[in-house]
């Protein structure tokens, strides 16, 4: 039995300040981890399949189709083309939906439920300060989310590039789902979903409302980023004659008619003059001399991707900062300076 005095046995005799092991978080969300790993694996397998065999088969089919004579029956592998298209859609759409999944999980499971059930309080009184709790809950999933979505967008870009120009029905680079599935914006959206979920969870402290707000935030960021994207890099303007119609191919910012003074006016929608004879009179009345298109050619792809990614990541950082601020205001934080330094020697002696 024990010690001669009440206080001689100090409980924390062996206390050595070590940071808590972040594995607790992985253990806690093991099902989510498995689901995430499974989703990434399935999509990755699909994309690799698309990239290799399906692209080759579909490209072959299109070559056969192109070689067909204009008349008579044409033998080509239609199934390969259909399969390519299906698998392309079945991989692209889930990939761009992943950020919403992350947002829903973050708002509901990672944060909302913890505050609703009070288990956050358990963590905060188990040697984990609220700030460290939040930092761990953001950092560990952020790494896994970034790694998963990063891998998938890279594979998607490879698969899309392999078919580009070889498959007639392949999506253009500026097709909205393809544009985001091909680049880092999807990674940034997913990280924003994670941060938005944290804010929603801490703000509402309820699972379902946090899920809804988190999804709303993710959708809002996605929508606004889509609106902003074409304006984040200087676009080029192409002017074409009234006979030619619009010729530019890329991410369009604006288009319409050019007048003789060079002013840009709205296009009444008549089309090139060759298409309908009445258009001549319309254009003459409007003093139109040609069509203009303000757009991003494919050469702007990386500039647009990176600028949008930076913008969305800034939003994610803003959401994270707001979450930390909220947490700091609601829970006790260390009192600065004087009092603490005065106490430190005391603690050492006590331990």
């Amino acid at each position, binding site marked *: *039995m*024990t010690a*001669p005095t*009440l*206080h001689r046995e100090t409980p924390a005799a062996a206390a050595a300040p070590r940071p808590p092991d972040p594995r607790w978080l992985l253990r806690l969300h093991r099902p989510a981890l498995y689901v995430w790993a499974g989703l990434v694996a399935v999509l990755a397998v699909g994309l690799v399949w698309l990239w290799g065999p399906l692209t080759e088969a579909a490209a072959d089919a299109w070559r056969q189709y192109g070689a067909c004579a204009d008349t008579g029956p044409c033998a080509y592998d239609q199934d390969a083309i259909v399969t390519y298209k299906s698998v392309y859609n079945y991989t692209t759409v889930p990939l761009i939906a992943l950020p919403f999944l992350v947002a829903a999980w973050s708002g509901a499971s990672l944060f909302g439920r913890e505050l609703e059930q009070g288990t956050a309080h358990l963590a905060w009184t188990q040697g984990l300060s609220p700030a460290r709790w939040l930092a761990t809950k953001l950092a560990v999933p952020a790494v896994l989310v970034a790694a998963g979505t990063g891998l998938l967008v890279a594979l998607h870009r490879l698969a899309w590039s392999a078919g580009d120009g070889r498959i007639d029905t392949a999506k253009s680079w500026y097709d909205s789902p393809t544009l985001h599935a091909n680049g880092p914006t999807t990674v940034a959206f997913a990280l924003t979903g994670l941060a938005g979920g944290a804010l929603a969870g801490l703000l509402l402290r309820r699972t379902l409302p946090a899920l809804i707000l988190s999804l709303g935030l993710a959708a809002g960021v996605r929508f606004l980023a889509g609106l902003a994207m074409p304006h984040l890099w200087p676009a080029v303007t192409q002017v074409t004659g009234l006979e030619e119609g619009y010729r530019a191919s890329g991410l369009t910012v604006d288009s319409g008619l050019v007048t003789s003074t060079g002013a840009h006016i709205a296009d009444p929608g008549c089309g090139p003059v060759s298409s309908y004879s009445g258009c001549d009179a319309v254009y003459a009345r409007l003093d139109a001399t040609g069509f203009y298109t303000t757009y991003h050619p494919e050469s702007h792809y990386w500039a647009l991707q990176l600028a949008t990614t930076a913008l969305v990541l800034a939003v994610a950082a803003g959401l994270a900062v707001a979450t930390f601020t909220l947490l700091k205001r609601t829970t006790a934080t260390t009192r600065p300076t004087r009092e603490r330094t005065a106490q430190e020697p005391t603690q050492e002696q006590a331990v």
Partner: protein
Amino acid sequence: MVEYRIDRHSGVATYVQIVQQTKQALRLGVLRPGDKLPTAREVVEATAINPNTVLKAYRELERDGLVEARRGLGTFVRRGLSTAPADSPLRSELGAWAVRAHEAGLDREDVAALFTAVLDEHFSTTADRPATATTADQPAPATTAGRPAPATTTDPQAPDPTPQGDPS
């Protein structure tokens, strides 16, 4: 080793119960000089009472010279109260008297009343101080205590309550 049983409805302060049960064990020879009392930890683990209550009782026993605390070792019995150990002639005489009382048709309460009356006649009621002192831990209304209630809280024989409850 003595085991304490705390009766929270007895109206007797918890620390007094420990003192009384220790003295009883000393009288009956269950505890003998040199025996070790259970540690406060052991007592409170079994009884769920406050550790300072045990300390207070042990202090009381120490003040009476019955036990002594040895630093780092524990609390030990210094002297017994075994004027009438379990196998003494006095006890067997009392036993024989009880048998006779039973044969005479007295029931348990009659015997108790008779015994208490004789006890009161021959022993002063304030001899056993803790039994009648103001009970600081668990004071009970005088009506339920079954013993004379202290007239005021300034009973000179009441144990000093202030140092109670500081283990530091």
